[in-house]
Structures are given as C-alpha cells and as structure tokens.
C-alpha cells in the first residue's frame, strides 16, 4: 500500500493542476466571448458584400473574360487548400480535427491525380500537416503573439492567394477551417473560394423590387468587380479565421472544463485511499498496543 506522505504529495499536485485548468477555463470563456463579438461585428459587412456580389455576378454571368477570381482559371488540376487552425494547443481535439479533415481531403484529391498545395494558417495545423505533407506546403501564416487578428491579416493572405492565382499556381482554392456551431461543437468545414460560389440569384429574388440587374455602375462593372472580388476573398478568409478563433476558445473551454472535472474525481479517489490507508495504519498500531498490553 502506498505510503501516506506520497499520497499527500499527489493530492496536492492534482489540486494545483485543477487550479490551473480552472483558471484556463475562465480565461478561455472570456476570450470566447470576445471572439464571438468580433465574429458578430464582421457579419453585417459580409452580408452586404454577398448581396452586392450576387447582383454583380448576374451582370457578368456568361461573360467569357470575367475575372479569374470569379470563374477560376478554367482548369481543375492544382488545388490550393488554405487550412485554418489554432495557434496553441490544450484545446482538446480542435487542431487534430481540422488537421485530419485536411489530410483526408489531400489524400482524396491526390488519389484523383490532382496536385495539392497547402497554405497553413495557424501554427498547430502547420505542424500537424508537415509530418505527412511537408513538400506540399507552400506557405505558413502564424498569428502568434497577436492579441486579436484584424482584417489586415486576412487581407494579406488574400493578396498572396490572388498573386498565386495570377501566376497560375493553382486552379481551385478551398478554405478548410473549424466552423463554430456552438460552444461544444466545432465542425471541420471546407468552403470553395475560387472559382467563387456566388450567393445564388434566389436571394435577390427574395427581395422583390430589388432585382440586381437594374443597378447602374460607376465607373463600370468590370472595374468594380475587379475591386470587389479581392475584398470578398479577404472577408471570407477573415470570417473563417474569426469562426475558427471562436471555435478554438470554445474547444479550449470545454477541454479545460473536462480536465477540471477529472482532476476533481482524481482528488476524491486519492483522498479516499489516503483516509483508508491512514485508518489501516491506526488500526494496526492499536492492535500492536493492545496485544502488547495483553502480553504483560
């Protein structure tokens, strides 16, 4: 049977671990709230953008020299995956989930004979994918040390992607990220960015009297489209990053909550063993004394 001193040491160490996980849970909850607010604040822009894009898309639909960002390069050979993951660990299966999802997708695409390139956003996902696909990684973006991710960061990624498209380095671009469904569930999701999936004309039809094709454009459709498409790309990436950030803190909060609960259980178990051992020691001491007294 374990001795008492050892048990006491273990109980104390589990107790301090529980304090840490509890504190981390609180911090994650606070950060989650902030991340959600930020995601909320980005929504109006993205919605208006989608509405405008829907009407513009109608206006240029069928135009053979529509911008590449909208229609892609026409090919389907090279796929670029932008994988958005977390910056840190200790968040349960958050990073592994998105990593595994990306891995399966890469394998699937390669099985079809396509070339895959990976742009890893977030340190953890990059590390995960490097183990198997180091040669496919064309770039890494990390927000380590940044308190919050702003729109400029997303814009930078978008600029990079646009440049790669112009250089003909890929045909199809897909964004892979953890979608924040609620605090306890984050779903790895793939969203195609290029060729752009336009919010269908049905949305325009839902608002009668606001048919997109009636707009006048200044300077002209092509110029506006050329400006709006990179913006749209950036906002999509920005949204994915915010979504993933909120998901990360949700997942971390959960993981820490579980850890705290487990630590509590562990403490109960250890305390029980501790008390039993103590009791057994006392009993055996008593027996010794009594039998000693009887022998006299």
């Amino acid at each position, binding site marked *: 049977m374990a001795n008492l001193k050892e048990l006491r040491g273990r109980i104390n160490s589990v107790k301090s671990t529980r304090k840490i996980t509890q504190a981390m849970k609180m911090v994650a909850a606070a950060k989650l709230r902030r991340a959600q607010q930020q995601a909320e*604040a980005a929504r*109006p*822009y*993205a919605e*208006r953008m989608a509405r*405008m894009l829907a*009407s513009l898309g109608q206006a240029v639909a069928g135009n053979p020299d529509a911008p590449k960002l909208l229609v892609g390069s026409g090919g389907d050979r090279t796929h670029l995956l932008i994988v958005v993951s977390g910056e840190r660990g200790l968040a349960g299966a958050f990073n592994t989930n998105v990593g595994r999802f990306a891995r399966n997708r890469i394998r699937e695409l390669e099985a079809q004979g396509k070339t895959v390139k990976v742009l890893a956003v977030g340190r953890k996902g990059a590390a995960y994918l490097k183990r198997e696909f180091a040669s496919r990684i064309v770039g890494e973006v990390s927000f380590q040390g940044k308190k919050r991710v702003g729109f400029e960061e997303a814009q930078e990624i978008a600029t990079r992607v646009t440049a790669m498209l112009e250089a003909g380095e890929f045909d199809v671009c897909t964004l892979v990220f953890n979608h924040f469904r609620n605090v306890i569930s984050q779903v790895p999701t793939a969203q195609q960015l290029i060729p752009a999936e336009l919010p269908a004309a049905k949305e325009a039809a839902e608002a009668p009297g606001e048919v997109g094709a009636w*707009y006048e454009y200044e*300077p002209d459709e092509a*110029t506006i489209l050329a400006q709006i498409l990179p913006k749209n790309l950036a906002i999509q990436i920005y949204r994915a990053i915010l979504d993933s950030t909120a998901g990360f803190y949700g997942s971390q909060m959960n993981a820490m909550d579980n850890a705290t609960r487990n630590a509590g259980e562990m403490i109960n178990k250890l305390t029980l063993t501790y008390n039993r051992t103590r009791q057994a020691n006392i009993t055996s001491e008593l027996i010794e004394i009594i039998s000693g007294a009887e022998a006299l």
Partner: protein
Amino acid sequence: MATFNLELVSPEKLLLSRPVEMVIIPAAEGEMGVLPGMAPMIVALRGGVIQVQENGQITEKLFVMGGFVEITPARVTVLADEATPVAQLSRAEASARVREAEAAYNQAASGEAPEVREAAMDRLLAAREMETAAEAA
C-alpha cells in the same frame, strides 16, 4: 424632409445605421450627393470624407479609405475598407501613412505594371486625403 436609411459598415464593425436626409460620398469619379429616391447604383469609393446630413445640417463626418456604395431608392449601404470618424483621426498617423504610400509609389513607379502603379497612386491619394481631413479636424 424625406429620409432614407444609411448603413456604414467596415469589415470590423457596423458604424452607422439610421435614417438620414442626405449623404455626400467621395465616389471614384468625384464627390456625389445622394438624396432619397435615387436610382439604384453601385459605386466605387476613393479615400475621402463621407458627410451625413440630418435636419438640414451636416451631423457626421467619417473618413473612409476606399470601398463601395450600394444605392437603392430606399437605402444606401457603404462598404468601407476602413472608416474613422474625422474627429478621431490622428495627424501623426496620417502623415506616417502618406510617407509609407509615397515610398510604395516610388517603388512601384520604377518598372512595375501600370495597374500596380495606379493602385499605389490611389493609396497615396487616399492617404493625402486622410492627412487633409485630419488637419481640418
């Protein structure tokens, strides 16, 4: 007076959403006043100051760094790349931006494609606009 609904959003937040009488926007091809009942339009913005008019007075001035405006008879939506109330502009920051943009333009002027040069020029003009606005405030 008749009003229409004005919305001003940047990627990071919704800055303004309320009925106004008129708004003056710095469109890419010159300033433009928008009144209620205007024909539907989508307009590109250059860097400049958006002025909002309510009750016959200019009540709000915001600096925007390019973007788009969607106009319908009943509402106007401004999608700004970046928007700051003029009163909160900082001169030091504006000057820093102008210097940055000038450097970028000078670099682009030597040998880059015309589109790149033009984009750099637009940014430089927007930054100068920002400096002027900051000084006026």
